[in-house]
């Protein structure tokens, strides 16, 4: 054995030993990570499956936080969830920890998170990515003793956040696990939140249903009738659950029929409320003997007029007297009714119109009068009828209404109504009804 070989061999031995030690360390560490990773994955998986059956929003957040604490050995977990008032946030910890409002100074962080839905290591907030958010985020870190923030963002809304104290900077692998948790927790939390919203929707739907039942009760129970040499039909279809059009007819004695139709500006329940007020006014006025159309609209305008929060509607009142052969009417900004004469093929209109109701405090409406002979008829309608759209967004229009009316006018009122509604339906060809449609047809017979 020559001594010349000893040194290279000794060097080779040292190198080999160092390499062996290096590999051994690397391997040991990796095995430790792998087994923890396996455990973490399992903890997370169980969270996913379990979280889908949790009843409340807070339950999901608490579970996610506890899961994170177990999986990452976090010493502290803080839950942030939206407060009762818009824009406010509450903080609490799993267990019997009371809610505590997040101070105003930190709130901007939650609005910012919706565009930055990634796990944030709060030690790194001095970086340029955080900009003006440095202060709010650092505040959260200091106040709640957390160093990692897991934001939960669903459909562009920050629905919650989980704060953790890891006591170390998460490794790349831990970060990816945290991201995993973030996505799972977001899905579960969003699910509970949406469930809550959907349940609330059912309650609201019921409420609107009940209200629209009250409103429908305000429409005349009898939709077609005849008396004193007059026969009439009314038809009202609401576009939604609650409508804002109304009509009413009153036998005001002396063989006279008073008809009022109205179209409230505004839709939905709000429109329905105004139309309920107006309808109720008309009932009271007619009961008290205000039967002149002009006087009725003048009184209605005074009753509806509100200086602070104006409400508006258009309407027509018409008083039919077959015995004396006359019809009197007044109009408040409403489409003019059609007059179909028994002796003239051309359609006429009941002309003249005043301002919209509720617009001018002292508005006065005057009645106009014209003759009414056997076979003459008047069509009152709201703009929803002529503005009925087909799928190409083309409105039904006055022309088509005139044609339908002219073609059917010799028939009885129910037939005329059916013919007009049929023409509208045919024109619409399945397009949705997006405005209330109302018509009242009165014929001297």
């Amino acid at each position, binding site marked *: 054995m020559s001594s010349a070989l000893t040194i290279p061999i000794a060097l080779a031995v040292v190198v080999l030993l160092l390499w*062996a030690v290096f590999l051994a360390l690397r391997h040991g560490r990796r095995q430790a990570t792998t087994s923890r990773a396996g455990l973490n994955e399992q903890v997370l998986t169980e969270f996913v499956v379990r979280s889908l059956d949790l009843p409340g929003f807070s339950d999901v957040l608490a579970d996610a936080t506890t899961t994170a604490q177990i999986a990452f050995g976090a010493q502290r977990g803080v839950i942030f969830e939206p407060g009762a008032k818009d824009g406010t946030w509450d903080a609490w910890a799993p267990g019997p920890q009371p809610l505590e409002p997040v101070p105003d100074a930190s709130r901007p962080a939650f609005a910012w998170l919706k565009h930055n839905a990634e796990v944030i290591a709060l030690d790194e907030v001095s970086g340029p990515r955080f900009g003006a958010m440095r202060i709010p985020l650092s505040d959260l870190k200091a106040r709640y003793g957390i160093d990692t923030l897991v934001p939960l963002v669903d459909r562009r809304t920050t629905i919650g956040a989980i704060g953790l104290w890891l006591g170390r900077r998460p490794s790349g692998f831990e970060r990816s696990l945290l991201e995993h948790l973030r996505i799972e927790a977001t899905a579960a939390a969003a699910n509970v939140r949406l469930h809550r919203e959907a349940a609330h929707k059912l309650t609201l739907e019921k409420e*609107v249903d009940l209200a629209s039942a009250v*409103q429908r009760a305000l429409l005349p129970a009898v939709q077609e009738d005849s008396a004193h040499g007059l026969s009439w039909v009314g038809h009202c279809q609401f576009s939604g659950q609650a409508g804002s059009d109304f009509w009413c007819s009153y036998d005001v004695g002396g063989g006279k029929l008073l008809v009022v139709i109205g179209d409230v500006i505004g839709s939905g*329940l709000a429109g329905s409320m105004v139309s309920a007020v107006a309808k109720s006014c008309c*009932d*009271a*006025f007619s009961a008290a*003997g205000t039967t002149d159309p002009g006087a009725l609209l003048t009184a209605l305008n005074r009753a509806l007029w509100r200086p602070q*929060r104006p409400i508006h509607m258009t309407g027509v009142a018409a008083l039919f007297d077959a015995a004396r052969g006359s019809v009197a009417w007044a109009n408040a900004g409403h489409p003019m009714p059609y007059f179909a004469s028994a002796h003239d093929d051309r359609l006429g209109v009941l002309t003249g119109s005043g301002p919209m109701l509720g617009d001018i405090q002292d508005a006065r409406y005057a009645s106009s009068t014209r003759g009414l002979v056997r076979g003459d008829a008047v069509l009152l309608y709201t703009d929803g009828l002529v503005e009925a759209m087909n799928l190409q967004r083309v409105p039904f229009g006055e022309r088509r209404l005139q044609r339908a009316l002219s073609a059917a006018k010799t028939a009885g009122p129910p037939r005329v109504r059916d013919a007009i509604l049929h023409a509208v339906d045919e024109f619409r060809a399945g397009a949705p009804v997006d405005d209330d449609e109302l018509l009242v047809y009165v014929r001297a017979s």
Partner: protein
Amino acid sequence: MGAALPAVGLAAAAGFMGVASHLGIGLLGGAAAYLGVDALFIQPAIDRKQGAGDELAAAARAFLQRALLSRTVADIALELDAVARSALGVERTLLLVPAPEGGVRVLGGDGSESARVGEAEQAFLWLGERGEPVDAELLTQLAEFDGARAAGELLHRLDAQVLLPLRHRGLLLGVAALSTPGRAGKAAEGLGNFYRILGAHATVAIANTYLDVEARGKKSLSKALDLATAIQEALMPDDRPVRRHGIAIRGLFRPVAECGGDLWTWQDLGGGRLLLLIGDATGHGAAPAMLTAVAKGGVDALRHVLGETLDPSELLTQLNRAVYKAGRTRYLMTAFAAVLDSAAGEIRFANAGQNFPYMITRGDAGRVKLEALVARGNTLGAAPEAHYVTSARRLDPGDRLVLYTDGVIDAGSPGSEPFGEKRFRAAMISLAEAPAAKLAEGLLAEVDAYLSGRPFADDMTLVVAEALPREEGAEV
């Protein structure tokens, strides 16, 4: 020290034997060979294995992230197909969801949709109960059960090997069918956990898609109700104190929900007379609010028609008809109407089931006297016709009239003692010296203090009217 231990042992042995000896060189060679094998084959194999696990988890995660952004179930089907294809090598994934019009929609990973899957109800029922991934082999084993057999037939019809039931809160939202011809039957083995996660992810994504539609519907509904609330508030007098014809009035209205069933109003009837009305429709919400709108319309119209000749009993008779028509006895309304004439020193009133208002007066020797204005009548809307009687009594300067709805007396959380008549009377006596506005605010403050932040269960309306001493009666 893990996998390198043998190499270290060999090297140590070489050192012990003498590295220069033949045996030592041999041992060192062995150690080097082991390390070489470890570095070239063993470590990469471990890396690969771990990498594969990471890859599956990452794929599942990426799927969830994308699926959560999907707006439709068809989009989720696309994502599911993509992840099963890339992470598992699944050839084809179909998503089966119940169609709204009945039957089953079969959504393909290529955006295709068909409805031809045949009878699937029994299979769905069984899968919904099971809630775990099943494969062809398992279904064959369970073929004695009708449900499992039906599921097996479905699997066969779809030309798939694995069925993933997507169950959410006890409801089967759908079934994912995976075609893995290369690994027929054995597909679920080892990958069971991954399937379960993928199933959970697809489930929550589908559920959230459905729920999101509802949640958006809710938004528009609450907006509609908000607008209705605004109208209701527009129908009420505003919160400001009023002075008219020697009377000071202050009314406060607190609805509990979006819309309330309470109503109060004052009207100048002319001739130095003021009408004061308070009402309370059964329940709260949009329907009772609609009833208050009907009543308000009636009051508005009648004061125009009748003016100073308006009589409280006549008003209630008319309102009864209107409320009966709109409420169809399902909704009723209590109301109290009073006409105050300070010049004549008289108050005329009638009552339709409303709790008796209080008069605070000065008795002998300036003692504060509290008395109820007793008058009885049927609740509005209970019968098509009802008759009311107008009562009258003196109204002296300094007298105060306190009108309130049930909500004030019943304030309190469920299960706890309500604020109650006793506390209310005590509060009125202690505040008897205060002017109308202060009295109303003070009384409501007492209720608030009693509630101490707890929510109240019913609308609260409180109205105070005070006959001003002659010199203070100027209009404001």
